[in-house]
C-alpha cells in the first residue's frame, strides 16, 4: 500500500499533509531541535511490541533519554506505574490537545509552551481528528506520530509500515538519541 495514504482509506486529508519519517535520524533531529517536547500516549500502545519488547518500554526509554514528559490517557496509566514510571500527567487526549491550541498555556509545569507534541497509540480516527485540530489551530506546535501507520494531519509521521520496519525505526530513534 502507498506509504502516504491514510491508514483508514477514507480519511482523506486536506492539502497540508505530514512529512515522512523514513529514517530515525529525522525524528532524532526534530526531537533534539525541539525546546519543549511532550508525548501523548493512548491505550493502543499496549498491543504493540518493538523487537520482542513491549512498545511501552521503548517509550519510557525515549522519555527518559530525551527528557520528554509523558501525558497518558486514563487506561494506560497503570501500565506505566507498574514499570516504576510516573507520567507527568493523566489527561484525556482531547483535554491536552485543546490546551496545546492555547498559545498562552505554559505547559504542565507552568513554565513554557510546548513546541513539539508526539502522539502515539490513540484510536486511528480519534488521533486523526485531534491532529487535525492541532494542524489548524496550534501553529506554534509541531506534531509527530510514532504509530506504524501514516497520519496525514501530523507535521511528521511514519509511513504505513510493516511492524518490523517500524520497530527498527523506533528502536533506532531511541538508540541514536544523545543521553
Amino acid at each position, binding site marked *: *500500500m502507498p506509504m502516504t495514504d491514510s*491508514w*483508514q*482509506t*477514507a480519511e482523506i*486529508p*486536506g*492539502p*497540508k499533509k505530514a512529512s515522512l519519517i523514513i529514517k530515525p535520524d529525522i525524528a532524532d533531529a526534530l526531537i533534539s531541535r525541539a525546546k519543549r517536547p511532550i508525548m501523548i500516549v*493512548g*491505550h493502543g500502545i499496549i498491543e504493540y511490541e518493538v523487537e520482542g519488547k513491549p512498545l511501552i518500554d521503548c517509550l519510557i526509554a525515549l522519555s527518559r533519554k530525551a527528557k520528554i514528559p509523558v501525558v497518558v*490517557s*486514563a*487506561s494506560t*496509566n*497503570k501500565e506505566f*506505574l507498574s514499570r516504576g514510571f510516573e507520567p507527568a*500527567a*493523566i489527561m*484525556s*487526549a*482531547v*483535554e491536552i*490537545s*485543546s*490546551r496545546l*491550541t*492555547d498559545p498562552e498555556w505554559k505547559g504542565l509545569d507552568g513554565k513554557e509552551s510546548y513546541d513539539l507534541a508526539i502522539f502515539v497509540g*490513540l*484510536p*486511528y*480516527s*480519534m488521533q486523526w*481528528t*485531534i491532529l*487535525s*485540530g492541532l*494542524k*489548524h*489551530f496550534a*501553529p506554534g506546535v509541531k506534531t509527530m506520530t510514532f504509530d506504524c501507520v501514516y497520519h496525514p494531519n501530523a507535521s511528521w509521521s511514519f509511513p504505513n509500515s510493516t511492524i518490523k520496519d517500524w520497530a527498527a525505526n523506533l528502536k533506532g530513534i531511541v538508540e541514536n538519541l544523545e543521553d
Partner: protein
Amino acid sequence: MSRKSVNFTIKEINSDLAQFRDLNITIGSITRERWEEPMGPTPYPSLTTLRSWDQRLLSRYKPFYMPFCDLCCLCTYGKCDLTGTKKGACGISMPAQQSRTVLIAACIGAATHISHSRDLLNHVIATSGRDCPINVGGTSVEVEAPITRLVCGVKPETLGDLEPVLDYCENQLTQLLAVTHTGQEGNHLDFESKVFHAGMIDHVGMEVADIAQVSALGFPKADPEAPLCDLGLGTVDTKKPVILVIGHNVPPATAIIDHLKETGLFPEVEVTGICCTALDVTRYSPRAKIVGPISWQLRYIRSGVPDVIVIDEQCVRTDTLTEAARIHAPLIATSEKNCLGLPDMTDETVDAIVAGFVSGKVTGALILDPEKVGEVAVATAMAVAPKRKKHSVLPTKHQLGEWAKKCTQCMLCRRACPNDLPIAQAIRLAASGNLSGLDELYDDCLGCGRCESACKQKIPIHSLIVAAADKKTREETYCLRSGRGAIQDLEIRKVGGPIVLGEIPGIVAFVGCANYPKGSREVAEMCMEFARRRYIVCTSGCSAMSAGMYRDEEGKTAYERYSGAFEAGGIVNVGSCVANSHIAGAAIKIASIFAKRPLRGNYEEIADYVYNRVGAVGVAWGAMSQKAASIAAGFWRLGIPVVVGPHGTKYRRMLLGRADKDADWFVYDARTGEKVYGGPVPEHLFFAAETKEEAMVMVAKLTMRPNDTSRGRANKLANYIDLHKRLVGGIPQDVYRLVRTHADIPLTMKDECLLHLSGHDWKESPIPDPTLLPRMVHQKRGD
C-alpha cells in the same frame, strides 16, 4: 385543512355581546388558556432570544475544533482550502466553517425528529382525534410536557394543542437552516449558539412525538414496572413466520400487531424489530421482540430469519432492498421519506400486493397507509414463510473456509473498518480452519459492511464473522424493560432533594446509537457499575438495548437486576430516541416541581438551575447520527454535559472547560450578588473519551455541581476517587480543585485526601448559592 396556523391572545374584552379574559384564539378553533402560571420572559424564543445564555456557557466551554475536512465544498466558488488561517472565497474561516457544519448536522437531526413528530401526530390525530387528551401518566404526571411548557410557554392538553408547538419548531428550523447559507453567519460562537437553539427545538419536537404516541397508542405511562420483553437474536422463534420492522416511526408496526390480534394470528407469527421502532413496538405489545441495535441489521437479515421486512424512517440501511432480495424476503417501505425507488402500491388491494410478493414478481413496495401495511405484512409473512424456508446467505463452515482461502492479506478490509479490527489476521486463521479470530471480531463489529465493499476478492467478510459466531448469536437471549416514557412527578419529588443535596451522586443517561469502539457490552457494564453505585441510570434508544445485552455473574441482565424506577440504583429505560425528551424533562421537573422554579417560558432560569444544581450527565457511547448531535445540543443548552466515545471526535468539536483557569469559573452568589469561584464543575460540556475507563471516571467527575452540599460533594468525590483508583490508578491529580471545604472530603478517604491537599497549597473556599444570571441575585426561592 383544519390545522391551526394563526394564533393570538386577547387579555380582556368587554363588549355589549360578551366579556372575555385571557382568550386565546387560533384560526379554525378557539381554545381557552387554563394554565394559571404567569408567562415567563422567553416563550417561543427566536434565534437570538437565548443568545446571551449560550454565550455564558460558550465563554466557559470554548469549542475545540477538529476539522474532519479541511475544505468547504458547499458553493461553486469551492472547493476552498481553509487550512489554518486561510479563508474561503466567501470570507469564512475554519472555526466558522466547522461550527457551520455542526449546525448543519444539528439541523438535520432536529428536522428528522420534528418531521417524525409531525407524521406521528398527524397519524394519531387521524385515528384518535384532535381532542384526544394528552395522558402520559394519569394523575402521576401533572407536568405532562415539561420541555414544551418551558420553551413555548404553553400547556398542551389535547393532541390538537401539539400542532402549534410543531408549527413553531418547523418555523425555527427553517430559520436555522437558512443561517448555514453562504454569506450568512460568520462568527463561530454565533453558529454555536444556533446549534444550541437547534438542540432545544429538537427536544421540543421529540417531546411532542413521544407524548403523542404515549397518549394515543396506549404505551406504558410513566410506569416503573413496564413489562420486560425479549431481546436478542436467540429469542426469535424461527419456526414461525417472522416479520421484521426497522426504523423509528411506529404506526406501521402497531398496525401489524393490531391486524395479528384481529385475525387471531398473533400466537403464530413473530414480530421482531431493530432500532427504535423495535423499542416502540414493544411499548405497544411486549410480545414483540427486539433483535438488537442498528448494527444488527445485516447480521439478522442475512441469517434469513425474517420473512417480510417493513421499514419506516431513520437509520435504516439504505441497501436493505438489496439485502432483502438476497434472502427472498419482500420489503415494504412505509415512509414518504424513504421510498427506495419502489413502486407506490398504496392504492392497490391487499390481495394484489400479496400476490405480487408471493409470486416473486414484486420484491418491494411502497405502501403509505399503515393499516394496509399491517394487512399486507401479515398475509405476506404467512404466505412466503413456507416457500422461503428461512433462506440464509450466511456461509456454512465449509464455505467459510473456502472463502477465507481466497484472501490475499491485502489489508484493505482492515483499512476500511471503522474500528480498525484485525480482520485479515482472523481470516488467515479461518483459512487454516480456526474460526476463533472471526468469532472474536463479532463482539466489536459494527455491522457496517465496509470491509466487504473494500475487499477485491469479494469475500463476504461480515457474513463470515456472523457465521463464525453462530453459537454466540443463538445465545443472544436477553431482556429489556420496555420504555416507560415520562418520569412521575412523585418520583421527582422523592429524588429531587437527594439529587440536589448530592445523596444520590447523579443521573447518568446512556443514550444514542451503537457506533461503539468495543461492542455493546461496554454500555451494559457502565450502566451496571453506576447503578451499583446508586446513581440513577437512564437508558434510551440503541443504548437501552445494549444495556440489556449482557448478564452479570448471577446470569441477570441490567433490567432484571435493577428496578425501573427513577430512584438511586434504578435503570430506567425511557424508550426510543424521541423518549430522550423525558430525560431532559426529568431534569427540568427537578427545577420546577422539587425546587418550585417557575417553568412557563422561563428557559434561562431553569437551565441555570439545572446547570448549577442537577448532577446529570449524558453518555452517548456510540453516537453516530445527526440526531445524536441535535439531542446532545439540547442537553448542552440545559447545561447538561455529554460524553461520547472515541468516534465522537468526528462531530468535529468538543466543548471543553479549563480547570486551570480560575477566572473561567466565577458565578454569582445569589445571596450576596458577589462574584465567587464556583468551579471547575462541571468541567466539560462535550467530551470524547478514548476508552470506557476514561469515560466512567469523567462521568463521575461531571456530575459535580457548584451547588453541591458538602455531603453531596463528598459522595461524588468518593465515587470519582474510587473509580479513578480502580480504573486509572492512584488518587486523581485534581482532587484539590474539587474539594472546597474540609467537610467535602470523603470520610473513608480522609488521610489520602489530606496528604494530596497538603501538596497543593489548598485553602478552603465558600460554597456559593450559584447562578450565572445576574438577575437571579436575591431572588432565591424555597429550594
